[in-house]
């Protein structure tokens, strides 16, 4: 007798080998997709959105690529998720984490084909991951004590991160920018305080870090264009018509003259409000909301610079840099903290006028102005810089540093190989596979650079056989080089996160032996 259908009509079910194969195929397809972007000579991808205007993005940031994909395969979704988490958590290594997870699954597929139970593979992977982490931990360099050296470390990390991005031409310049910006944060990881302004025009080299704050706004007409020793009031208040907030209030009049009276009262109210604000003894007023012509005029009369429509972030940052508080009521001028800065002036970048606040009290925030040939270049530059900033701010908190250029992978692979030899039982196959997956990363880096990966990795392996070796792949010269001398470093935290999340994701996918897909929710036809 035929077994009845248990699931709903469009739902599907895949079991055992088929399910596993679907996961492997999906995961490996994703890996192959982002694989070519890995390393300093990785290629970029063009993404065209399906939305209106078909906006185009050019990037080699793993997380950005994966985020924009429409994926149906559940295993692939797991990989996209880990890449997203990596982006949120440490900001860099988004491609590496997916590639490592994919390589782990590729190796696992071979083992499963050789009739090793997934659970055995998982327990082997776990042991290997632990061992790899410890091996890396033993070789970390921590320069927390020595500020000079630490700054050098940061510089190296920034250069390494940037070298795989579009900014690689001017990496020294940008690394310097990023390090300076992060050092100003003094240990906080709040990257909101670093503002990035993109202005097309000029070249990437013209980008600069500004110690003060730049607001992308214009100064109102007839108001001073330059203020020295500014006292700034940062506000979030309605400066259009200050509406009555009591519920249900409305104006009902019976003659035109009354309308005029009430209008007058409204104007009076606004004038009073402006007077109160002026009474704070300020010469610059920045509001998050709109400022109507009338109050603007009043401010102009009082010689106060009024800036409207500064967005939320702008206001918060401004409050942060100038040390003022964001005010919404103006009744007690003596107790409101005002912001201070030495000079406010209008500056020109390219064709646009911006307002520049310099000589600010608290040096925590700063602005990076990016210049570049096109929007695409600028967008990608921003993403690259963001990655670098994330990594640096994380490194400031966790100061451990490892070398780059495939060095950590080789160190880990060596330790894992050692472990495989000592482990009895079927697990050792899985452990060996783990080391192969680790070695795949330098292989891919070399391949992407158009080098002879087989030869290079073999050389690298031989080098690493010696104790305390610093060898890695030098993509520029296309040979094995000393990473310490070349100054290629990476943050330990990033490497650790890559290792752990990739293992976790691979484990998760391996454990699955059945995929049940529900019927997709029916969209109502809008036609």
């Amino acid at each position: 007798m035929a077994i009845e259908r248990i699931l709903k009509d469009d739902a599907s079910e895949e079991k055992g080998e088929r399910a596993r194969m679907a996961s492997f195929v999906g995961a490996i397809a994703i890996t192959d997709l982002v694989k070519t972007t890995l390393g300093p000579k990785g290629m970029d991808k063009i993404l065209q959105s399906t939305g209106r205007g078909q906006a185009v993005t050019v990037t080699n940031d793993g997380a950005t690529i994966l985020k924009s994909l429409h994926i149906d395969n559940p295993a692939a979704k797991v990989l996209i998720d880990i890449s997203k988490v990596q982006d949120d958590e440490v900001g860099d290594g988004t491609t590496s984490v997916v590639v490592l997870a994919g390589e782990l699954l590729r190796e696992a597929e071979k083992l499963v084909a050789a009739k090793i139970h997934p659970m055995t593979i998982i327990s082997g992977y776990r042991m290997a991951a632990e061992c790899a982490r410890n091996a890396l931990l033993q070789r970390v360099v921590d320069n927390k004590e020595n500020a000079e050296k630490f700054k050098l470390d940061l510089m190296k990390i920034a250069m390494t991160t940037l070298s795989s991005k579009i900014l690689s031409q001017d990496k020294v310049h940008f690394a310097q920018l990023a390090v300076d910006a992060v050092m100003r944060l003094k240990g906080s990881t709040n990257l909101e305080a670093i503002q990035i302004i993109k202005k097309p025009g000029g070249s990437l080299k013209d980008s600069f870090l500004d110690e003060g704050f730049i607001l992308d706004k214009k100064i109102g007409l007839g108001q001073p264009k330059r203020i020295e020793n500014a006292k700034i009031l940062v506000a979030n208040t309605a400066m259009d018509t200050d509406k009555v907030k009591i519920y249900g209030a409305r104006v009902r009049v019976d003659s035109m003259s009354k309308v005029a009276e009430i209008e007058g009262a409204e104007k009076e109210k606004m004038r009073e409000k402006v007077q109160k604000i002026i009474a704070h003894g300020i010469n610059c007023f920045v509001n998050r909301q709109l400022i109507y012509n009338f109050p603007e005029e009043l401010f102009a009369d009082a010689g106060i610079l009024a800036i409207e429509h500064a967005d939320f972030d702008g206001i918060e940052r401004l409050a942060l840099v100038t040390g003022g508080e964001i005010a919404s009521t103006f009744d007690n001028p003596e107790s409101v903290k005002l912001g201070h800065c030495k000079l406010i002036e209008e500056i020109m970048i390219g064709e646009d006028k911006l307002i520049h606040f310099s000589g600010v009290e608290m040096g925590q925030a700063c602005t990076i102005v990016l210049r570049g040939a096109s929007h695409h270049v600028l967008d990608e530059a921003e993403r690259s810089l963001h990655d670098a900033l994330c990594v640096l701010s994380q490194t400031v908190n966790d100061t451990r540093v490892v070398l780059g250029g495939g060095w950590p992978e080789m160190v880990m692979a060596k330790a894992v190989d050692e472990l495989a030899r000592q482990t009895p039982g079927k697990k050792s196959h899985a452990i060996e596979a783990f080391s192969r997956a680790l070695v795949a990363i330098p292989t891919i880096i070399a391949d992407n650079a158009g080098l002879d990966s087989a030869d290079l990795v073999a050389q690298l392996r031989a080098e690493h056989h010696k104790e305390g070796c610093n060898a890695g792949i030098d993509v520029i010269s296309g040979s094995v080089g000393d990473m310490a001398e070349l100054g290629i470093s990476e943050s330990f935290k990033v490497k650790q996160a890559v290792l752990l999340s990739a293992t976790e994701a691979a484990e998760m996918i391996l454990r699955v032996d059945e995929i049940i897909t529900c019927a997709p929710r029916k969209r109502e036809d809008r036609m």
Partner: protein
Amino acid sequence: MALAFDEYGRPFIILKEQEQKTRLRGIEAQKANISAGKAVARILQTSLGPKGMDKMLQSPDGDVTITNDGATILEQMDVDNQIAKLMVELSRSQDYEIGDGTTGVVVMAGALLEQAERLLERGIHPIRIAEGYEMASRIAVEHLEHIAQKFDFGPTNVEPLVQTCMTTLSSKIVNRCKRPLAEISVKAVLSVADLERKDVNLDLIKVEGKVGGKLEDTELIYGITVDKDMSHPQMPKQIQDAKIAILTCPFEPPKPKTKHKVDIDTVEKFQTLRQQEQKYFDDMVQKCKDVGATLVICQWGFDDEANHLLMHRNLPAVRWVGGVELELIAIATGGRIVPRFQELTPEKLGRAGLVREKSFGTTKDKMLYIEHCANSRAVTIFIRGGNKMMIEETKRSIHDALCVARNLIRNNSIVYGGGSAEISCSIAVEAAADKYPGVEQYAIRAFADALDSVPMALAENSGLQPIETLSAVKSQQIEENNPHFGIDCNDVGTNDDMREQNVFETLIGKQQQILLATQVVKMILKIDDVISPSDY
């Protein structure tokens, strides 16, 4: 299709639109039902035990869930068959009642159905089978009580509880760090448990998750976390010895429920209204300040003006806190939820030793920790993990562990796991079967065989030879008259004594599994007619 005829030989229609319905009757119906039930059980069978595999489920919206929790799998499976829905219900009721063993109960029911099918083929009436099962389940439950052991634990000796939670967690993906998680669960349950009344209110334990970090970073917070930040970016991020005003009224001008209109027709009215409005904001904030609050937690939003006034008076505030969280905060801090500003009094404020804001990762994510509360009975388990699916699965696993700990506090009897209890019951039921005259004897024997299927599935999932292992363990149990031998799933060694391997399960959980499975199977067996609308 059944047709009836009246005395003139004309057919009458019994079922409305009967041509459009399919109908299965008698043995056909039973067989169809059994095969549907078995199909569901077969899906779950591979998830059983510490080496069980996971299932990946894709929801109608494309979200992916990876789990091996029976109840979750079945719930998300989009089941259409009626009998399969019964199985889903079965697993859900085990989840509500016990919280753990949701996979086992379905596997058990599936095995009972499989055995019933064979008996049906031999011509035994389904009701007789059902009765036999009923008798057998009673024997098994009694036997379980017989082999169960009490074990002692107190606030100081929590080791047994931890061990039991570890058994539960070992079948989940989180088994990598089952020990710390088990300890966290036990500590959480103990801190909210009422040991006198032997009751635990699990609502007081909040399980929160945030992606990032690693599983080992999961921690127990004696207090509450709220996924919110201070309403004004410049408010203090840390408050010592906070006195908390918990409000359910917004910092906004009142909105009377009755429809009304305030007409402004003169300039004076316009001005007074404005003054009133300002005074209103001022009063609200002053009221909070007057009673001595140092932190305001509000369920609703704030007006910009009110926000600044709060900031100005140095009164940190949190807005848009959900109702459930608000209640938990009230319980933890010993405060009262105040619905109107007028009713705010110093006694109604909650107290907490430390309130701090913590930020995560590179994004702007912030959370508020409320710790060292006046009443430390409410706790939060804060889970970290590599990705979203991992966090969700950990949440489910922790829930199971919490339930197990709670059950043990309610009733401290345990049985040994690893299939040993099932094997022992099977032996007892088998032995008892011979005493029953009549057809039921066959059903009881079949029940014993069905009990064997759980350890069999365990052995199979662990990569052992199922039949060989089972018979070895069974003979060992009889030979040494020791019900503690089970399947060595973890491949520890030759010694299969579950007592030494510290594999425990709760007695009530096991009993409930057998009873619930038997009930559902009885219900399915009693169905002899399935009428369903045919497809088209």
